[in-house]
């Protein structure tokens, strides 16, 4: 309906203009004609003045360009004038009913496109403000980046209507594309191999940490113990290794411990429905405190664990790590494998489908014979294991153990899940969405770092970014619609 009406209007207009102005558009009114000639001449004079003043081009070229631009301007002005002529003629001719109809069509067109128009205008204003206020901002790269952004915005709004389910993924991809385009224009060496590797590596850490959060969110829960488990795994692994435990065994043991914490989380938050946020926070506190106490026993420096990280672990996650001879840190490959397994698993296996069923409607899923407790606990166990894995990998990356290494992940995992488009109410989303969210966050971080913004500004922008992203696809129905 809406598309029909907006398509009709321009076609009518074109027909009329062609019939009225044959080859050379000449407005009916003499005065308009003279005004046009005057305007063209004034612009040509300004052009001559500026051209000779700059003194870059030769005189012939200046005259040539001046005449061409004056002629073009004259034609353009006349063309616009004829269009207005034609429209007034139509308006005079049409009846009251037609007028109403046309007005309504304009209104509908405005209503359908108002968000897009407002967004584009606000972007324009922002650009103009920045250009006016910041000296360094006035560059051709920024202009191109701005135009690309406007185009992407137009594209996003016009196309996203055709996506019914994967709309959040689409918007996320668009934002990701826009970010990459703008960054590569405005930051020197953004697309260089080291930078891309760094972005992917940090995305891999965040991505692995967000696996559990995604699964738990699909069921309608939350897991805030992830950062504490990451920190605990980090120091526990190093202290086990320095205590003489073979590194592979210690690695496996830490993963098992992570799973155990997840199990506790799962059972307790299942019993205390709706309190998952607090339960996991409490377990997180307890686990972090307990691990620190255990690692501090017999150590003179409480809270600090010293030791050497085994070579294979640092190769796994360090920036200069190699995978089969290639200069890619194996963590990225691990993340890739996990992502593929997760996406395919959630889509194709019965386990994955049951998870969605439970998240969507528990009662119905129970009637299908799906054990709610089993899935709930399993998701939390997976979350714990992957948090422990992230903590261990971060140990390889940094080379030293530190309990606070998980702190940035407290709300970032949640932000990645939400920006990707997984609903926190359960039943909607998937790991593919989270991957997009993670990439958006990391590319944005890299971009903000590149243009010289500090950590606090990044936080601020992350915070402001979440709202519009979620508002685009994650709005709940009005209460009127639920009664």
């Amino acid at each position, binding site marked *: 309906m809406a598309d029909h009406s907006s398509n009709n209007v321009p076609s009518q207009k074109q027909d009329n203009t062609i019939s009225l102005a044959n080859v050379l558009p000449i407005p009916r009114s003499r005065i308009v004609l003279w005004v046009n000639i005057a305007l063209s001449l004034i612009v040509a004079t300004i052009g001559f003045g500026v051209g000779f003043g700059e003194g870059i081009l030769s005189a012939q070229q200046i005259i040539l360009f001046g005449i061409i631009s004056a002629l073009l301007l004259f034609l353009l002005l006349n063309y616009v004038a004829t269009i207005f002529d034609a429209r007034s003629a139509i308006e005079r001719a049409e009846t009251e009913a037609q007028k109403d109809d046309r007005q309504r069509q304009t209104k509908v067109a405005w209503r359908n496109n108002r968000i897009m128009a407002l967004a584009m205008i606000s972007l324009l204003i922002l650009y103009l403000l920045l250009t006016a206020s910041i000296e360094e901002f006035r560059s051709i790269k920024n202009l191109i980046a701005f135009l690309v952004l406007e185009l992407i915005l137009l594209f996003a709004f016009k196309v996203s209507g055709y996506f019914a389910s994967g709309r959040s993924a689409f918007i996320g991809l668009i934002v990701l594309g826009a970010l990459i385009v703008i960054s590569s224009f405005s930051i020197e060496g953004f697309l260089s191999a080291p930078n891309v590797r760094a972005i992917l590596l940090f995305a891999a850490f965040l991505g692995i940490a967000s696996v559990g959060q995604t699964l738990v969110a699909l069921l309608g829960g939350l897991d805030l113990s992830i950062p504490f488990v990451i920190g605990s795994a980090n120091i526990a692994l190093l202290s086990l290794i320095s205590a003489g435990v073979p590194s592979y065994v210690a690695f496996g043991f830490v993963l098992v411990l992570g799973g155990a914490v997840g199990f506790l989380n799962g059972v*307790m938050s299942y019993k205390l429905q709706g*309190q998952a946020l607090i339960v996991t926070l*409490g377990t997180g506190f307890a686990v*972090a405190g307990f691990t620190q106490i255990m690692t501090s026993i017999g150590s003179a420096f409480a809270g600090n664990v010293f030791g050497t990280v085994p070579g294979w672990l640092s190769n796994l996650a360090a920036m200069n790590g190699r995978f089969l001879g290639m200069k890619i840190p194996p963590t990225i490959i691990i993340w890739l494998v996990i992502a593929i397994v997760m996406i395919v698993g959630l889509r194709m296996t019965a386990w994955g489908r049951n998870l969605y069923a439970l998240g969507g409607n528990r009662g119905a899923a129970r009637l299908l014979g799906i054990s709610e407790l089993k899935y709930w606990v399993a998701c939390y166990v997976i979350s714990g294991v992957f948090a422990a894995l992230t903590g261990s990998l971060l140990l390889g990356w940094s080379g030293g153990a530190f309990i606070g290494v998980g702190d940035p992940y407290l709300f970032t995992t949640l932000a990645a899940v939400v920006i990707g488009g997984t609903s926190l109410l359960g039943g909607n989303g998937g790991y593919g969405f989270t991957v997009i969210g993670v990439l958006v966050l990391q590319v944005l971080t890299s971009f903000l770092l590149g243009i010289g913004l500090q950590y606090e500004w990044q936080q601020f922008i992350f915070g402001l970014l979440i709202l519009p992203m979620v508002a685009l696809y994650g709005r709940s129905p009005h209460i009127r619609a639920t009664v």
Partner: protein
Amino acid sequence: MVLRAQTTNIYLLVPIALLAVLLGTAVIRGPSLVSPAGAGSAIIVAAPLILATYSLMVLAVAGRGTIDLAVGPLLAFINVVVVKLSTSGILVSPIATFIVALGLGMLYQLAFALVVIYVRVQPIIVSLSGFLALTGINLVILKRPGGIAPPFMQDWGLGTTIFSPVLLILVLATVGWYLFTATTFYSNLKMTGYDERAAWTSGVKTDVVRIGAHLIAGIYVGLGAICYTALISSGDPTQGQNMTLTAVTALVLGGVALSGGRGGATGALLGAISLWLIGYVLATFNFGAIQAFITQMIYGLILVGSLLLTLLVPFIGRYVSFVSPWSMFLIFGFVVVGIMLQVATIDLYNEAGGVAANLPLAERYFLLEPARIDSEGSGLSPIQGLALLTCVAAISFTVAARLMDQKIHQRRMGLFQYLFIAALMLAFFIAVALRASGWSMVGGYG
């Protein structure tokens, strides 16, 4: 038929019991708490947390799973702005400071409410967004802790007396909430929180209610920020995350339902004080270098433990439903006040001298030695003895009255009555046995 008295308040059982245990331990472990200076500084230190918990409580009552994760950063934001303005000499007068603090809090909460109502994004996502944004902007406004608080609140944070302006703010905030509960707006708020659809269909303007709840929460955050500024006398942009986590914990310890519709200032107050007491008690133990870790672990364990206890509340309620939160409060109150009196008057006994009932265990774990028992019976003065008897009588009377009120409708006796009577008989035998051995329990009154 069983009369279910006070079932709406039954969730207060856990916080009251927790508070009593903690307060008793705290007073024994750190006797300075009962001195005016100790109590005064305790109030000032706990006030920001209590007010932040109030703010969370109002929003939690408003429903839709609103947990304002941004409460800590918002508090820090107001703190930082006030300090920044005051350092540059713009903000001097108390009235202006209050207007700025409360205004910022209310503005933020108004924006929060409008986004929740009109953009219709889940509140938790809005609060997450606010958390990140405010945490960032705090560090932009003030790079590191520092600055000067407005001059008029320089001596607020000293904590030498109990009656400080901070206590006045706290009392006003609490009394304000109880006055508010008398209004129709409050019942609408509770109804909206409990079942928004039902409230909406029955004609409650849920949007207005929600905006109102957020504005009240904003006032509490503003007051909390003022108390916080008075406490640290400077600005600190870094404590937002901690404040959020502790306030949410306090909210849950106080038994406020995060699902909405249930909660009040009593629960929030109890929760916040309990949380502060946990820190206080743990600080009196000397764990050396691992102090911070033990504190963190105990926080977590108590949080989870108290949540698990709330699972038991309906179960307990079935068997001991004659124990209302208020009789619990009475019982625990007497016990704790007794401990406090004992600790406060310990010097008298020490002066009196006597035979110390030294126990190695007690010496090791109590900062104070236990009360010294005079060789000629106990050292209770007649007034103390009378007070003790009054307490015991009041408690027994309350329990007995509630028990009768409860059981008068029942045909069979429950397990509890057997236990109760068994305990009474045991006490009787012990008393007789002690009498026979010539030991009088309360000199002259036994």
